[in-house]
């Protein structure tokens, strides 16, 4: 558990809805949900969610903080926007799901083995290094995400596609050595650092 998490538990003691309204992107919409269930019924991944959106909204209002933040549910959202299009109260459900996922991650409560969360982290780490996505490295890190054994198996399975891409110059093996980047990677790092400071000040992370 992070300090930030303890701070938030302390600050919003017993009122998770208030916490969501204050800290989650579009969180102040949660109270508008009237539990009609159209979002859950409309979600193409609905049957695979632990808690569909409308159940998440109810859990938030029922103060089930850990159950919501530890859940893998909001990480399942593929941003198809079916729920937003159909919600009779106009809740930006997709955005709330991403907001909750981001918040859970920030608190250190996001499920550790959740594939979407892992991929998102890999993508981010890859991108910020040079300011450009290194597809070769990203692809490989994705293959080896769940260990060496699975990584080798997946690499062999994708071998032909990889070779084909090399042959047609869609992928360069030189990318393994550093790879291409944006003009001013140092400047980008400075921008991101500043953005992080501003954001953390806004949500009140102190020495997280």
């Amino acid at each position, binding site marked *: 558990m992070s300090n930030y998490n303890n701070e938030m538990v302390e600050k919003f003691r017993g009122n998770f809805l208030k916490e969501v309204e204050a800290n989650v992107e579009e969180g102040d919409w949660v109270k508008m949900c009237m539990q009609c269930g159209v979002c859950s*019924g409309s979600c193409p991944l609905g049957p695979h969610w632990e808690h569909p959106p409308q159940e998440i909204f109810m859990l938030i209002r029922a103060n089930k903080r850990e159950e919501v933040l530890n859940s893998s549910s909001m990480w399942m959202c593929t941003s198809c926007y079916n729920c937003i299009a159909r919600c009779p*109260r106009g809740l930006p459900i997709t955005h709330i799901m991403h907001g909750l996922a981001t918040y859970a991650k920030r608190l250190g409560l996001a499920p550790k083995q959740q594939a979407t969360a892992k991929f998102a982290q890999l993508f981010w780490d890859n991108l910020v290094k040079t300011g450009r996505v290194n597809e070769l490295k990203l692809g490989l890190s994705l293959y080896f995400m769940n260990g060496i054994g699975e990584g080798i198996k997946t690499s062999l399975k994708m071998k032909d596609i990889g070779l084909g891409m090399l042959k047609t110059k869609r992928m360069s093996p030189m990318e393994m050595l550093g790879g291409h980047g944006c003009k001013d990677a140092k400047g980008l790092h400075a921008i991101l650092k500043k953005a992080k400071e501003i954001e953390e000040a806004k949500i009140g992370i102190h020495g997280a």
Partner: protein
Amino acid sequence: MSEVIATNQTILVVGGGISGLTAALEAAECGKQVILVEKNPSVGGRVSQLYKYFPKLCMPSCGLEINLRRLKANKNLRLLTMTEVTHVEGDTGNYTVTLKTTPRYVNENCTACGECAKVVETEFASEYNYGLGKRKGAYLNHPMAHPQRYILDARIIGTPDADKAKAACKYDAIELDMQPAETQLTVGAIIWATGWKPYDAAKIQPYGYDRYPNVITSVEFERMADPFGPTGGKLLRPGDGKEAKNVAFIQCAGSRDVNHLAHCSRICCMATLKQTTYLREKYADDFKSTVYYIDIRAIDRIDDFYQRVQADTNITFTKSKVANITQDKDGNPVLHGVDTEGYHRYSNPHDLCVLAVGMEPSVPKDGFPMSIKLNPEGFVEQDPANGGFFAAGCSSDALDVNRAVQSATASALRAIQVVNKVAGMEG
């Protein structure tokens, strides 16, 4: 059209449905001069299209008959059918109103013998039955239509059908050269009883009203249940004519939805509960019905009715706003969603799916022939800025018949106060 005499002590009532009839009759029976205009060929409005009323399950024809008798007996009331208000000018107590009358092509000689309808061949979708079934190009809207005068559809004028109708008429009632007429009147107050229309169900894309023949609206179901309706009172699927014995009702179809009508239409819950009783009436115990709802809003004394329906074990209530509808190979609508009581996912096939569509004002927001204060949903506000304009019934809000009639009486009293003031000033 014969001369209509009106002064600034006259009350104009726009719309001859149950609210307009009530407002006009109440004012006329208080001794005021009233002009009632109706854009359709006959009065009675949407109430005349109902099979039964809730919660007493009695026939609307009964109350309508009483009102028609009052109307025929009253010398203070002048009825103009097929007439619309095109322009209003002036101020409280002194309005100049322009009326436009479209030709009926049938004059007062008509005895409603029906000979013209027998010879006319062209048929059109029946407006009275919401497009279920057809009617002739010469027709009477329904057996109780008032005035009891046939009408020729403007689309047959100039065709051999029109000449056939004229030749068949023994009373010289058909005038094929009848022209639209414009009239100007002075009135003191105007009651807008312009009513409601069912929300266009095709706009609710996931429910496929425009794609699946066995998804219908509650108003269509109501016509089907009526013995004088297009199916003779049988509940038949429009897709294949099969009897519908497993019927789904979807509540809030278009209502309480920011994508459609933001307001609660108030009547649909009770209308659905009423319509479930039609199934028991037709099939005794041999039926099934499921009501998909967000929450049932049967308030006050009508809660008893809800409890009676709940006690029927053939009727299931599923707390869920249906997400979407598909169709299986037998033409059955399949409803998909999540039952929020327990979060059970369902895909339920039914014979027929009835969308309990919402009420929206008949007149669109920019459709009034003068400026008038409306609320965001398009219903007429009770606002001092509206001067001598008053709303009766569903032009003021989504109301059931009971509340519409109360609202109509209230508006009649308000209009009477305006013309009384005018009378007082003129001594």
